[in-house]
């Protein structure tokens, strides 16, 4: 390609302005995920960051598991519209057994990616109007123990670092003194590095912001304090926390790193966070998902695959599978029928046999009964005869007896 020089002003240097005005009219969306234990200050920090009060009730410590609560708000500053979604992790860190605590968070992030992927793959799609719900930034709130990360923190961040941009922050930092803070930050960073957790690095390739970004990278994790109350300092009302021993001002850089966080998160790198989410995390998800489904970029001959061919091939495969399954089921059905038929036949035969047997026994019994009856009748007859004989004998005897008596008497 040749590069030419212009001999006059053409006017395409207004392209960025056109882009800006278009994106302003479109509006921006930004999604923040706050992960941290109950009561650590997530809602207060959001209120402080965006200088407003998002409605939020205090959560209880006795939830059975972790669940995510997304809330969307519409904010406006100058003429820029922002659709802000804040996702809260309710119940995180409260259970006695926290082995499953990271799962709902990972599932939520994946679900947002899945929704976007579906929209992308639709036939009639409207990406222009699609409300992007993918999480652009995860603020991980670390409890200020002063020693190191908690085991739950490490486990959770390891599961999240490949899915979302993580910025770890030390919450309630007004309980860590300056000397302890340095050691604490160093310990946290070394633990993250030694366990291979990839946190978000502020980009240093754009010269406009490279310097400030690289100096900020050195201050991670930010030690922040949030406040919903205001205190009068001098003649201004500032967000601060009033203690008997002093007043902690949120926006005082020597008190905490809140200003740094706000700079980095909102004023300098918000767009980069969105782009990273799309270019790195979403692409990774998409690639894994499509590989699962069997798509490849190059086939066995290293020829670029066309989607259509893959699709047709997949369809054939799928239909073939369906047919096979149908065959299998039909076979199974036929086999079952045969089996049951055979069983029934067996039973029938058995019944017949028993019937025959019973009939036979019945007949035999009848016969024996007949015999017994005949015997009995014979007996009866003999008995009768004997009886008659005995009676006649008796009468004879009686008469002879009489005769004898008579003879005796005479």
């Amino acid at each position, binding site marked *: 390609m040749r590069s030419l020089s212009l001999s006059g002003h053409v006017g395409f240097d207004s392209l960025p302005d056109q882009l800006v005005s278009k994106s302003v009219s479109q509006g921006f969306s930004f999604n923040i995920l706050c992960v941290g*234990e*109950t*009561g*650590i*200050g997530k809602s207060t920090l959001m209120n402080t960051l965006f200088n407003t009060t998002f409605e939020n009730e*205090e*959560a*209880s*410590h*006795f939830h059975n598991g972790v669940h995510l609560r997304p809330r969307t708000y519409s904010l406006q500053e100058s003429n820029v519209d922002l659709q802000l979604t804040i996702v809260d992790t309710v119940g995180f860190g*409260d*259970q*006695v*057994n*926290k*082995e499953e605590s990271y799962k709902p968070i990972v599932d939520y992030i994946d679900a947002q990616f899945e929704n976007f992927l579906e929209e992308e793959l639709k036939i009639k799609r409207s990406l222009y109007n699609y409300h992007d719900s993918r999480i652009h930034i995860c603020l991980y709130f670390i*409890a*200020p*123990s*002063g*020693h*190191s*990360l*908690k*085991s*739950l*923190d*490490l*486990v959770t961040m390891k599961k999240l670092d490949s899915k979302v941009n993580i910025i770890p922050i030390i*919450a*309630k930092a*007004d*309980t860590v*003194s*300056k000397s302890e803070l340095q050691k604490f930050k160093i*310990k946290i960073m070394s*633990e993250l590095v*030694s*366990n291979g957790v990839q946190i978000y690095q502020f980009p240093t390739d754009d010269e406009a912001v490279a310097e400030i970004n690289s100096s900020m990278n050195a201050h991670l994790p930010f030690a922040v304090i949030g406040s919903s109350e205001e205190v009068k300092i001098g003649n201004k009302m500032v967000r601060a*926390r*009033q*203690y*008997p*021993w*002093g*007043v*902690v*001002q949120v926006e005082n850089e*020597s*008190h905490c790193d809140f200003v740094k966080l706000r700079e980095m998160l909102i004023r300098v790198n918000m767009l980069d966070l969105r782009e990273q989410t799309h270019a790195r995390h979403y692409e990774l998800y998409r690639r894994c998902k499509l590989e699962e489904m069997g798509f490849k970029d190059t086939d066995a001959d290293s020829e670029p695959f066309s989607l259509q061919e893959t699709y047709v091939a997949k369809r054939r495969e799928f239909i073939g599978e369906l047919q096979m399954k149908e065959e299998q089921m039909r076979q199974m059905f036929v086999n079952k029928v045969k089996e049951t038929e055979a069983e029934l036949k067996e039973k029938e035969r058995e019944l017949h046999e028993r019937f025959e047997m019973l009939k036979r026994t019945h007949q035999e019994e009848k016969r024996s009964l007949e015999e017994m009856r005949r015997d009995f009748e014979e007996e009866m007859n003999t008995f009768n005869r004997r009886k008659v004989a005995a009676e006649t004998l008796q009468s004879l005897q009686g008469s002879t007896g009489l005769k004898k008596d008579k003879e005796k008497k005479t």
Partner: protein
Amino acid sequence: MTTNIRYKSRSMKSEDSEDKQYVGFATLPNQVHRKSVKKGFDFTLMVAGESGLGKSTLVNSLFLTDLYKDRKLLNAEERINQTVEITKHTVDIEEKGVKLKLTIVDTPGFGDAVNNNECWRPITDYIDQQFEQYFRDESGLNRKNILDNRVHCCLYFIPPFGHGLRPVDVEFMKALHEKVNIIPLISKADCLTPTEVKKLKDRVRDEIERFGIKVYQFPECDSDEEEEFKQMDKELKECTPFAVIGSNTVVEARGQRVRGRLYPWGIVEVENQSHCDFVKLRNMLIRSHMHDLKDVTCDVHYENYRAHCIQEMTSKLAQDNRTDSPLPILPLPTPDVETEKLIKMKDEELKRMQEMLEKMQQQMHEKDQ
């Protein structure tokens, strides 16, 4: 009787020969004092709570020593599957001639793993073991030198970062409240403003009542104590659970060197009553209620354990009918009501069967005849 009255009326007049009126048993407290100083005291304190809540720092601040010079803290990876250990540190400290043998029982690893199911079991086992050992020693032949290792008090550290008690706190306290005196503390209280402290204390007190956890109660004042003492006692009770801050370092504040924490926005003084309740905790634990804690442990928790143990033993013996028990069999002062009933029932059954047997014998005899 009349002699007493005579003596009393005489002492009012404060006449000559006062030693005749004065019996002298008013010196008993002095004798107790002298003897106890000679014997020395011992106290076992257990600290429990997640890592990073300031337990070691508080213990150092309470006893103004450094008990944890070279301890090794685990990092997050090692703690994922950590089990709870029990470690003991014993020090002998002395103040104005009074010697105290202080034992601190620490529970590293409690609540640190990802899965903390029953993580209090090693702790309850340890406490039971100490009770069992004391029980054995007490029932032994030579009882002169019994070592009392029973845990007298357990300081439980509640993190101030939440809205109240968490499930693991509730379960721990419920597992231990009938074995040891539990004193719940709100740790690292320098992250709470005074309103937040009050709110959290009320919340924790409510939840303790709601879940039926029996924490250590201060004994009621006698009605004839001074007003000032009663007032202090009332304030103490309303302040629980104590919100404490500990510090290992000495800083310069208002021209004095005090234990405190240095922040860019001010200095937190550990011993300043308007900053935290450390002083109240120290007074309560060491200066006024140490002995009461020991008494409650001996009279209530240990006795519960002992009664439970003996009951189990005798029911087991009745079943097994063995005579070689690990402990010497103590003669039961009162037989169990239940076993008595059983014995009566069996007797009656036997009588009935004997009668039946006689009847049958008679019948047979008659039949033979």
